[in-house]
């Protein structure tokens, strides 16, 4: 009896690894097909051509921000405004939509993933800040958003002033903490910050009453709005979202800036924002 159970487990493991191997194999096949189907675009700058030659564009995106970068739990597909920007970028490199490989990132992982070469670009509600410009290349701004506060409706908190002595949950590696601090200092109130690695963790802390407010960019907050929570009217320190690439990859940054300029001029950017209910 014991032996047959062991054999069963062994068989299951073998079957699983076989499935995984076959999965990888077919992926490779897809890649080759895509490669042969790709027309080389000759007038690309060297830094961009290098990516086009690889035959794939590896993009870090958010998986949990509705309208920007959201991953469907069932299909694993990504959708959102930033996803469409990645497709547009790929097209301009002569790559197809299938050549775009998305990787979910958080505020904490996106920088290191660019540095170690696992990602070519990061389009993930990444705010441009002076100290970040020393570490990564950033494109021009493609969206501007405010930092907001999500509170529970029954908390009695109606504005920033009500937060005196309260606790605020923020994301690690985000600029929120410093942005909120400037406002609370100006208002003469003191708050305590708790940092979490992901938005769902901050949301859980808000739900359980561990923190009194969940603070991050308003566009991100809108994804966590429920019947018994609300986003305060207060909004501060406009955050400029830029497309990040590895420090020194100037060819790519210029290429991305040209793309953004053209999209704004042609009106494609407005169409894109309208498509995702953004303004």
């Amino acid at each position: 009896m014991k032996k047959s159970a062991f054999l069963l487990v062994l068989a299951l493991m073998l079957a699983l690894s076989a499935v995984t191997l076959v999965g990888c194999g077919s992926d490779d096949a897809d890649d080759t097909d895509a490669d042969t189907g790709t027309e080389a675009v000759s007038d690309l700058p060297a830094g961009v051509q290098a990516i086009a030659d690889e035959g794939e564009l590896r993009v870090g995106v958010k998986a949990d921000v509705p309208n920007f970068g959201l991953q469907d739990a069932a299909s694993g597909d990504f959708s959102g405004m930033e996803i469409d920007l990645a497709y547009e970028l790929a097209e301009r490199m002569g790559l197809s939509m299938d050549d775009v490989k998305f990787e979910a990132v958080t505020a904490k992982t996106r920088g290191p993933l660019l540095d170690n070469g696992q990602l070519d670009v990061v389009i993930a509600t990444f705010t441009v800040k002076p100290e970040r410009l020393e570490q990564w290349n950033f494109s021009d701004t493609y969206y501007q958003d405010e930092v907001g506060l999500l509170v529970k409706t029954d908390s009695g908190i109606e504005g920033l002033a009500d937060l005196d002595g309260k606790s605020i949950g923020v994301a690690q590696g985000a600029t929120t903490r410093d942005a909120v601090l400037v406002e609370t200092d100006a208002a003469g109130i003191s708050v305590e910050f708790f940092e979490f690695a992901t938005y769902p963790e901050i949301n859980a802390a808000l739900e359980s009453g561990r923190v009194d407010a969940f603070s991050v960019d308003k566009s991100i907050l809108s994804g966590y709005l429920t019947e018994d929570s609300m986003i305060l009217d207060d909004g501060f320190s406009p955050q400029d979202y830029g497309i990040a690439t590895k420090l020194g990859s100037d060819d790519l940054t210029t290429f991305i800036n040209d793309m953004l300029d053209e999209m704004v001029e042609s009106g494609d950017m407005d169409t894109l924002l309208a498509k995702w209910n953004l303004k």
Partner: protein
Amino acid sequence: MSEFFASIGFLQEGPFAVPRWEALFEKGMDTLWQGAATTLLVASLGLALALVLGIVIGVMSASHWRIPRAFARGYVEFFQNTPLLIQVFMLYNALPLLFEGLFLPVVTIGILGVGMYHGAYIAEVVRAGIQSIGRGQLEAALSQGFGYVGAMRYIVVPQAMRIVLPPMTNQAVSLIKNTSVIAIIAGGDLMYAGDSFAGRFGHYGPTYVMVGLIYFLMCFPLAILARRLEERLRAD
């Protein structure tokens, strides 16, 4: 000397560049030391709890009474077979929802978390130690008029203790490292301090190297101690 450093590429640019190390030493070390102090607090009180729980439950699971044995078994299986991460997350977020307003401080959660979790492992070590002492020892003690608890307390456990010390010390090392899970509930420990500093300023390269080094400095002496104890045991 400076030429030597200039020849090392990764110190010039990238995540490990020299200016990042300078930034860490200028404005990051205070944060890290504060975190290290919290980690030491959680680890030491957690270890005390784990030892008490481990010995009591270990003795229970080696006993011949059915109910304590069943309880000890249940305890050990529960804590050994669920991730510490989930236990800590539940204490943090689920407890206030189940019992209105029961907000255990994060440090307390850390102490309870690692204490109960490693208590289960130490209980297994203690049980194995007791069972390795010949049954004759217990029988002899009982025949001399000791009760069961007295025989355990004065005869069996002291002998078992010598055998279980090295694996127990290894548990202490693991316990120190596992305190880092409270970083996910904003625990203010060394890992959290490192995450926080690395996240705010982006100097994650030097920061995590330093965090790892501090954990190493806390654990290494204990690991050495475990080896010494083991060698002494073998010499006997």
